[in-house]
């Protein structure tokens, strides 16, 4: 392996403002055999993961990107003067997972699954650019069709829809859930 290839890749990830994909790295380093580039990237990920540093490289939104480590969140927020990042409400989260798992989906289908009118929630999600309208369904009334966005993936640190919680993970939670029967706090 060419010495320094690892560091070249690190510098690429550093200057890239968006998560940089493996393809992009290979394209940039086209004068090196792809297998070596891949190996160097793996090495780099391992070194940064084990190093005691304030930053790390994560894979998110289909590429690699530098982030701060979670334990330093309080200081970063203090520096940026951000008290806390706002989280999604449970109604938003519910609607968003329905879209994620059932897309393409219409508003009335979402509302039927939740048994709750979801027009307001979907509007919020549209504004946050976590879902998008991709067309109209060829059915009575030609309702709009919704899908999740790239931003949705990045928001949850996913690289593709395949990384959504699987049936098995869900079954596991449901199995555990049966033993828990605490009332939600008032």
């Amino acid at each position: 392996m060419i010495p320094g290839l690892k560091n070249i890749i690190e510098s690429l990830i550093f200057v890239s403002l968006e998560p940089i994909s493996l393809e992009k790295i290979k394209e940039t380093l086209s004068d090196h055999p792809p297998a070596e580039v891949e190996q160097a990237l793996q090495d780099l990920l391992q070194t940064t993961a084990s190093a005691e540093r304030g930053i790390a490289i994560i894979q998110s939104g289909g590429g690699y990107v530098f982030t701060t480590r979670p334990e330093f969140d309080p200081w970063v927020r203090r520096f940026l003067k951000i008290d806390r990042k706002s989280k999604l409400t449970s109604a938003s989260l519910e609607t968003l997972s329905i879209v994620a798992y059932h897309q393409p989906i219409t508003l009335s289908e979402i509302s039927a699954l939740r048994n709750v009118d979801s027009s307001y929630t979907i509007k919020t999600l549209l504004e946050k650019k976590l879902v998008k309208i991709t067309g109209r369904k060829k059915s009575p009334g030609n309702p709009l069709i919704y899908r999740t966005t790239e931003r949705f993936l990045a928001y949850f640190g996913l690289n593709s829809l395949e990384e959504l919680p699987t049936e098995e993970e869900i079954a596991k939670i449901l199995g555990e859930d049966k033993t828990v029967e605490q009332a939600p706090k008032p």
Partner: protein
Amino acid sequence: METSESYQVRLEVFEGPLDLLLFLIRKKKIDIHNIPIAVITREYLDYLGHEEQINLDREAEFVLMAALLIHIKSQLLLPREEPLAEGEDPRRFLVDQLVEFQKIKAACSILKEREEEQLSLWTREVLPPLPEPGEADLVEVSLFDLAETFFVLMKRKEAENFRVVRGKNYSVEEKMKEIVAVLEKESVLDFLEYFNRQETLEEAVVSFFSLLELIKARLVMAVQERLFQTIKVWLRRESKARQ
């Protein structure tokens, strides 16, 4: 009394009727595929009964579910000439809904953890993050916001009442180049300020059109930190990278 603990739980904590039903099913340790409708209906109505006033806006859905439960119960009570076939259980529809909803809820809890994790990771961003109290992010402005700003400025310019007639012609193309040049040098442009710098009304109008063209061509990004504040213009990073 067995249901006394339920007094402490208010309807507001449930996102919808399915949420409440699932809670009751879990509390009573009921098999979701074989729900004793009489029991669950009683429990469910109990909950609704504890609300002092039914707020129709929010609780219509809860009431609708109550009606559905009672309907299912009545169907089960009615004598039939022939016993029901396997797939004809009146509870079937509700059970299917509950099972699906339960899965969604479980997925939500996993996603919630992921959200939590992600929120503590910070990446470098093109736009410096702004300390903001609400949920609102930077608003990428719509055409209407721009148009509104434009009309405000037009009014101001009009008031200045230009008399000088100059022979100079302004082209949108040139203006676009000029705006891009400013952006490349200064990386960010205050649109209001830029607009005010224009010498004549004509030039100002042309500069506005140029901005619209640039946005349309996705070469720049127009962002408002808060509504009715100034509009800031950035070069889009993809286009920057290309050069």
